[in-house]
């Protein structure tokens, strides 16, 4: 079953325990950009108006990053995490370009860089534990569990205190659904969430074109092969006709009339 996290922005107090726990768990350096997600920050808490909002990898159910990776270095695990194999990565950075949330970051200062992003503490999750950030959260703003169960919990909170929540769970349908789910008291675009996301998985957009390639290659190749064959055959025949005509013309100069040839036959007899 897919794991997920429910982040209730109405309960976050901005204590940054999650950031600190993440840094420790992943041995992140501290000497680079701290103002947004970066190679030093897999998660970051932003103050947006009266609320604190965490940002990290959303672990999409059908992740654009994993679908665009030419070598399959990024992968969605059944348990939920989108993980990265740094030994495969060639560094094309298409994952960074394709991510609708602009999450993956790069080690720009290194000669042999890696893509860096939250990996949902997959070592812990696969072992039955919970991510460092969820464990560290003192208020329960970040809770870990089965994605299905978290959705039910989120709906229950909305139903129990309708005045306190927007009737929208961010991540339920966005880009086909994400493992991270958000609740908010105000419309999501007011606290920095994107409102122009499509509701279906992004990889479908490219797959609808890519899936036609085998047909195109087979049909196109056969068709062009046939065209080449027909045209070249016509050319060969034309050449033959020209050669014949030339030969006949040459013969004609020394032995022109067919009447003479006809008469010659009788001479032999």
């Amino acid at each position, binding site marked *: 079953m897919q794991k997920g996290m429910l982040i209730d922005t109405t309960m976050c107090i901005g204590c940054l325990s999650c950031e600190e726990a993440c840094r420790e768990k992943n041995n992140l350096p501290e000497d680079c950009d701290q103002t947004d*997600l970066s190679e030093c920050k897999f998660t970051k808490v932003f103050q947006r108006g009266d609320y604190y909002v965490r940002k990290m990898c959303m672990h999409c159910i059908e992740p654009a990053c994993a679908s665009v990776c030419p070598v*399959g270095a990024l992968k969605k695990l059944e348990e939920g995490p989108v993980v990265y194999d740094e030994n495969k990565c060639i560094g094309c950075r298409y994952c960074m370009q394709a991510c*609708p949330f602009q999450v993956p970051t*790069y080690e*720009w200062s290194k000669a042999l*860089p890696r893509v860096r992003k939250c990996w949902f503490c997959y070592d812990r999750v696969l072992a039955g534990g919970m991510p460092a950030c969820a464990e560290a959260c003192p208020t329960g703003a970040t809770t870990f569990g089965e994605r299905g169960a978290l959705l039910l919990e989120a709906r229950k909170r909305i139903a129990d205190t309708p005045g306190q929540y927007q009737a929208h769970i961010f991540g339920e349908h966005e880009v086909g659904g994400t493992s991270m789910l958000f609740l908010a008291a105000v419309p999501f675009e007011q606290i920095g969430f994107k409102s*122009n996301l499509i509701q279906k998985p992004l990889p479908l957009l490219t797959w609808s074109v890519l899936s036609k390639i085998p047909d195109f290659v087979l049909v196109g190749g056969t068709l062009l092969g046939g065209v080449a064959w027909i*045209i070249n055959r016509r050319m060969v025949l034309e050449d033959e006709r020209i050669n014949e005509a030339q030969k006949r013309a040459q013969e004609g100069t020394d032995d022109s009339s067919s009447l003479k040839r006809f008469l010659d036959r009788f001479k032999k007899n």
Partner: protein
Amino acid sequence: MNRKWIPKITFWRLVFAAIMVMGLYVTYIRLFKGLGASTALSDKVPWGLWVGFDVLCGVGLAAGGFTITLIVHVFNIKKYKPILPSTVLSAFLGYLLVNAGLILDIGRPYRIWHPLIMWNPHSVMFEVAWCVMMYTTVLSLEFSPIIFERLKWKKPIKIVKTITIPLVIMGFILSTLHQSSLGTVFLIVPGRLHPLWYTPILPLMFFISAIATGFSMVIFESYLSRRAFNKRLELDILASIGRVVLVILAVYFVLKTKDLYNRGALKLLLDGSHESKMFMLEMGFGVVAPLALLSVRRIRESQGGLFVASVMVVMGFVMNRLNVSITGMMRSSGANYFPSWMEIGATMFLVAAGFALFAAAVKYLRVFPEEKPAAEPAETLELLVPQRRTPHNAGMAAPVGE
């Protein structure tokens, strides 16, 4: 004795040498100090000039190769044969530029072969990687007879000639896939690419604009070659290519306008934003103006007119690719990007190296047809059947045999 081997120092040779030295320095910084030390890229703007120009434009500018080879070898329109070698050469050089650009751009260049064994058929970039590798191979095979001819290797020429047609067909299919897939790359960023450029038919638009640009490059190169190497190509061939460019541009313009209308994006043209200005510049300079020029017969059938129109198409194409990959992504990225001097320097380096290789090939290989002293008296039969295939066609000068 030695003097003969020392090239005369001229202004352009000095410029060229300076660009080469700068290029080597930038390459060193890029490979040993990393992308951060050499580029203006960031987490918000992961693709810049090297992807936008070296890769996207390099592929498109090479598009003359697959169309002209198809026309000559599959459709058997021999009229275009004289421009075949130079077109295949420039396509080949275009792809070398792409490969070099990729090596500079990807974070771990020594893993460039990974897509060979690590497959992800769901990735457009996987398709792109395979197209680059395979079409570079096809182009080098298509160009190889000219080199074999110079080396007087009879056997390899024969082998390449027997596989010419399959090779040309494969080249056409690979190119069609590759040109369009560069548009497909951007299909996955619907919320991020500005709606003036994001459209579900991006692959088609990339394909059509690449064909128009490929033909324009043929005109452009022929003109420059005539000036630089004193080689001439017949004007009637270039004028008929000009007509083809005119038709393709018209199709492109209609599709583009209708697509904007379909998506309700026409009103974005007049909102005065930076994007709308860049879009107008791209379309006005690269499509509408050359359309107007080429539709005038006197311009279309003059060397200068064709040259100006083709330069405009090529520049409009470059603007389009840069707009899709950089301008259109800027607003949603939340950051700013202008290429660093090293990104520009490396690009100049690769382009200059391409020009030098082209010049060297013209000097040492038979890229342009030998100029005949005088036309032989035409035989009556040839007049009767003007379209026939001449059995001993110019010997082995063809880049890919009959």
